[in-house]
């Protein structure tokens, strides 16, 4: 530590610059992680909150299933008949509306059967369908000014529903979720402006939410073949949410590049630093410094610079989260932040490790006159 700290002190300008670069990389990784998680939540948190193990779509819907799939009551009945399986209809549609107090909102309408396992428990107010057509809205809509007891008129058909309750901050496709009774959802999805409001509408929905009891895996392929459906796990259904896959690929690519940059930048710095120190490393070797001690000195310097840079970068990322978290989708829990910064630090140190061989390379004989 003795020499490592004194060299750091003497070359503090260079190490500060290096630490600043590590800080910026760490801050960027942290911020991108926050946006990745935040955007992910904004896209699929309503799906993540579904207490279902699988979602059953129509057989022809292989992608973008929530838009493309329509399944009928026969499919629902067939899945309900399976032993060890709970099944409930689920409709998904993005729409918009205005409350009686003039608050304009977009909402992802999740059609659910009141009392079914996919109907959410409200944090405040009453469950879905407590009043005729009563809905439960996401906390995000409450934050926009929608309150229990408000009347919401949903566009296109002018369907009026009462806000019965408020539940967690769920959203779908960057739109706050609202859980509506299935018959209301059917009107939103299939109703035609100007048509007879009493006309019979098809009994169809986007998917059947399935909850398998017990630990045994469902024989999905066999069941799909028998029922003419396409079933995927709840986790796999995230890819069907609008924009989710594209966002993940984009944000993860940025993170991967940042993770690649970290070791290269730190490694390049210590490679140059080691070359600059060559004559002094030769002197230390001549004085009897062992190779492990020289490696230790450099490793300590790298660890201090990388750790300090990563911690400072983490503070910047957390600060950005605090400043922007309420305005943009940003989620950076402490554990994620620590893991992210740990990754940056580990890769930065790995970059240094590449240069360590050079630390012990200087020949102590070069200190003597005949070899200078």
């Amino acid at each position, binding site marked *: 530590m003795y020499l490592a700290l004194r060299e750091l002190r003497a070359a503090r300008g260079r190490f500060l610059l290096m630490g600043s670069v590590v800080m910026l990389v760490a801050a960027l990784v942290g911020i991108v992680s926050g946006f990745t998680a935040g955007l992910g939540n904004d896209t699929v948190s309503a799906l993540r909150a579904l207490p279902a193990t699988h979602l059953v779509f129509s057989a022809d819907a292989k992608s973008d299933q929530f838009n493309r799939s329509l399944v009928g009551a026969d499919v629902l009945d067939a899945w309900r008949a399976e032993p060890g399986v709970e099944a409930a209809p689920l409709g998904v549609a993005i729409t918009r509306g205005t409350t009686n107090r003039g608050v304009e909102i977009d909402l992802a309408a999740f059609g659910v059967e009141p009392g079914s396992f996919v109907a959410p428990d409200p944090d405040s107010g009453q469950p879905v369908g407590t009043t005729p057509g009563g809905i439960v809205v996401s906390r995000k809509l409450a934050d926009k000014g929608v309150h229990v007891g408000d009347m919401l008129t949903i566009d296109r058909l002018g369907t009026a529903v009462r806000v019965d309750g408020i539940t967690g901050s769920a959203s779908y496709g960057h739109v706050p979720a609202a859980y509506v009774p299935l018959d209301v959802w059917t009107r939103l999805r299939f109703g035609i402006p100007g048509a007879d409001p009493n006309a019979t509408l098809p009994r169809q929905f986007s998917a059947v939410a399935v909850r398998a009891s017990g630990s045994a895996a469902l024989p999905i392929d066999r069941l799909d073949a028998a029922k003419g459906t396409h079933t995927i796990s709840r986790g796999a259904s995230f890819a069907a949410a609008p924009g989710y896959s594209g966002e993940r690929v984009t944000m993860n690519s940025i993170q991967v590049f940042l993770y690649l940059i970290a070791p290269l930048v730190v490694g390049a710095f210590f490679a140059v630093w080691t070359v600059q120190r060559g004559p*002094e490393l030769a*002197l230390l070797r001549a*004085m009897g*410094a*062992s190779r492990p001690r020289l490696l230790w000195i450099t490793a300590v310097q790298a660890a201090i610079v990388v750790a300090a840079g990563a911690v400072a970068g983490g503070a910047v990322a957390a600060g950005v989260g605090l400043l922007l978290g309420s305005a943009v989708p940003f989620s950076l829990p402490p554990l994620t932040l620590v893991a992210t910064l740990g990754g940056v630090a580990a890769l930065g140190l790995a970059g240094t490790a590449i240069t360590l061989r050079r630390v012990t390379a200087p020949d102590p004989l070069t*200190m003597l*006159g005949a070899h200078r």
Partner: protein
Amino acid sequence: MSLVLSDVTVTLGRGDTRTTVFAGLDAAFAPGHLTALAGPSGSGKSTLLAVAGALLRPDRGSVVLGDRDLAALSDAERARERREHIGYMFQSGNLLSALTSVEQLLAAAYIAGHKPSRLKKRAAEALEEVGLGQRLRHRPDQLSGGERQRVALARALFLGPELLLIDEPTAAVDRGQAAMLVEVIAERARAQGCVAVVATHDPVVIAAADEVVNPAGERVSV
């Protein structure tokens, strides 16, 4: 503790550039006085220092310091000998640019496994002994050439080495500083009671030495 080289053969280079510097060299150096290793450039002075100081292993022969044959030691063991029993003072580039004068000495202690914080006072005293009491907190770029060499001398002697090896100490200092430096070297080397060998072709240094040998190990009359 004496230094005895017996039947030492050193060959440097490879292929066409292969050169035998010493073939069966015998030399002995006694403790307590300063020996000048004199000879023209290229005569092998620095190579002899390298062999004697465990920086270079000879192809053949023994290099016995006290009761240890340095030629028979591994790389790691020779590094240990250097940090614990041998003091070096090189022609130039002796000092670590990041450290103050006191820290140069403490760095040597750190390398040898001592706790630097416990030796601060002793380091300051060692620097005072070479006339640098007012330069304790100066860095190498704040010292003159002669002062830098005196710091290097104080560092070489700081841990009480059995062997002090000095390579062309006056090569990078002016004449006035050279005389002062040589006086300090001779005084400290004798006071320390170690085997002290200085490679030089500077008449000032040769005049200050107790004896003079050539790189063949033969006593030379001056």
